[in-house]
């Protein structure tokens, strides 16, 4: 094996950092967008066709560009924000561009599942749109939202490995530079194993949390 344990742990930490930060920022972007996608659609709380169409199209554009191309295409933006296009911090920028719109869609889906009757009851009580979103829509969708975030997080683990391959660091970087380019099968297997365990762990955690929220 060409790398020591320390190097693997370092790569793991980098991956975790990449995923954590990009998840945080993409949630901050995706959550409001997802909510807007629901409440501005026709017949909903704050119907607004213009806002809906704009957000909907932007999300579709980002969602249709493969991550590897998105990463390269937005290098100028990455440089502008982070100052460099290489390294873990720089990888977070394309990851957010990738996961933000994805999370918006997942949130949209979860919120659309909420029984329209509940929203009607809220309106009958004289709830404001803000109250309806915070006290009715989100609590009713919470269990499903958690599953959505789980999917998004796992997606980010995969994408972060790709970002790593083009100089972002992390487990992907490790697998490519040692496992692939230097034919170190052991390193390859170890990274794959770590990724598998990570994804399994995340999914189980998400399932348990979601179930706990649903209470049955």
């Amino acid at each position: 094996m060409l790398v020591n344990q320390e190097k693997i742990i370092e790569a793991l930490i980098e991956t975790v950092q990449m995923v954590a930060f990009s998840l945080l920022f993409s949630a901050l972007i995706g959550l409001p967008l997802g909510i807007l996608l629901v409440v501005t659609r026709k017949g909903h709380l704050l119907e607004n066709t213009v806002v809906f169409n704009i957000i909907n199209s932007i999300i579709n554009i980002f969602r249709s560009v493969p991550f590897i191309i998105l990463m390269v295409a937005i290098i100028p933006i990455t440089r502008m924000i982070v100052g460099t296009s290489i390294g873990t911090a720089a990888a977070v920028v394309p990851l957010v561009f990738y996961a933000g719109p994805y999370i918006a869609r997942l949130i949209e889906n979860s919120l659309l599942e909420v029984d329209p009757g509940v929203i009607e009851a809220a309106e009958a009580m004289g709830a404001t749109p803000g109250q309806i979103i915070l006290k009715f829509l989100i609590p009713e969708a919470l269990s499903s939202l958690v599953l959505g975030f789980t999917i998004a997080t796992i997606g980010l683990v995969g994408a972060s490995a790709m970002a790593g391959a083009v100089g972002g660091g992390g487990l992907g970087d490790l697998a490519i530079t040692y496992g692939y380019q230097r034919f170190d099968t052991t390193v390859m297997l170890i990274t794959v194993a770590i990724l598998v365990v990570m994804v399994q762990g995340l999914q189980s955690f998400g399932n348990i949390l979601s179930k706990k929220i649903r209470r049955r």
Partner: protein
Amino acid sequence: MIEFQNLKKVYNSGGQQVAALDGIDLKINKGEIFGVIGFSGAGKSSLIRCVNWLEKPTSGKVIVSGHDLTALSVREIREVKRNIGMVFQHFNLLNSKTVFANVAMPLTLAKVPKDEIKKRVHELLEFVGLADKANSYPDQLSGGQKQRIGIARALATQPSILLCDEATSALDPQTTSSILQLLKKINKEYNITILIITHEMSVIREICDRVAVIEAGKIIEEGTVFNVFSSPKTPTAKNFVSTVMNDQLPDSIKEVIKKQQGLQKVFRINFVGNSAGQPLLSQVAKKFNIDFNVLFGNITELQGTPFGNLIVEFQGPDSEIRRAIQYISQEKVSIKEVTSRAS
């Protein structure tokens, strides 16, 4: 209390115009239980949803507690809504929240202090008979219990109007009856005006004071429940009344009448109020030279007043029978000859 003036609602669905409400004029008085009955698609939900602005009318006016809703701002309408509770067919409770939190919701929205909310919610749960379910979740309750929670929630802000859109349509007959009794109790104890929308005439019979029949977006008949039940005018109203009055003759009786046609005289006698009962018939038998034979009969109670329906066969000379009929025909009794073809 609630007044509709030439209310119209037109939906635009897929380029097609649907006139759900076509000029409704209706007045619901303070403290009464008013029922609106109609077939599916008649416009009942559209009508009731205009009262708390879940639906904005296309034209016409809705006046609630003296406020013309069409003239109010969104904020003002929210205030009016606090004075109107609504109960739904499918309960519309939050499954993610406990029974307590569900009932507390309108108070939380109105930013009522926590300890006050606690006190009020416990009172309400006590009132609907589910004090022990405060910490349960809606999916642990039966349909009837869910509706009781829905009712408690609707009463949380002490509204003066309660709207019920098919509140019992998802429930079995026994549960329906208990929910209706609860609504009656609410009306009596809190003097809350209740507007009930239903397609079931039994609901109207059990608790309403007045009723309007709606068809194709129009009110086609309106009156006290007693009057509409005892003398429905439109075919639709007659149809609804017959669903609960059970005044159809059983086939076996029809058979008897058919066989004996020409020999005997068979009459349908409708009794109303205190005149419902046997003394009238026995008086007739004593006063005139005829005998009678009751073939079929039933008595329904409408708002505490008995309403009877008897099929009676008279035996005796024609002239005597004619005189007897004249004697019977008073204000609250109607008598009609029944032929084999009649129902």
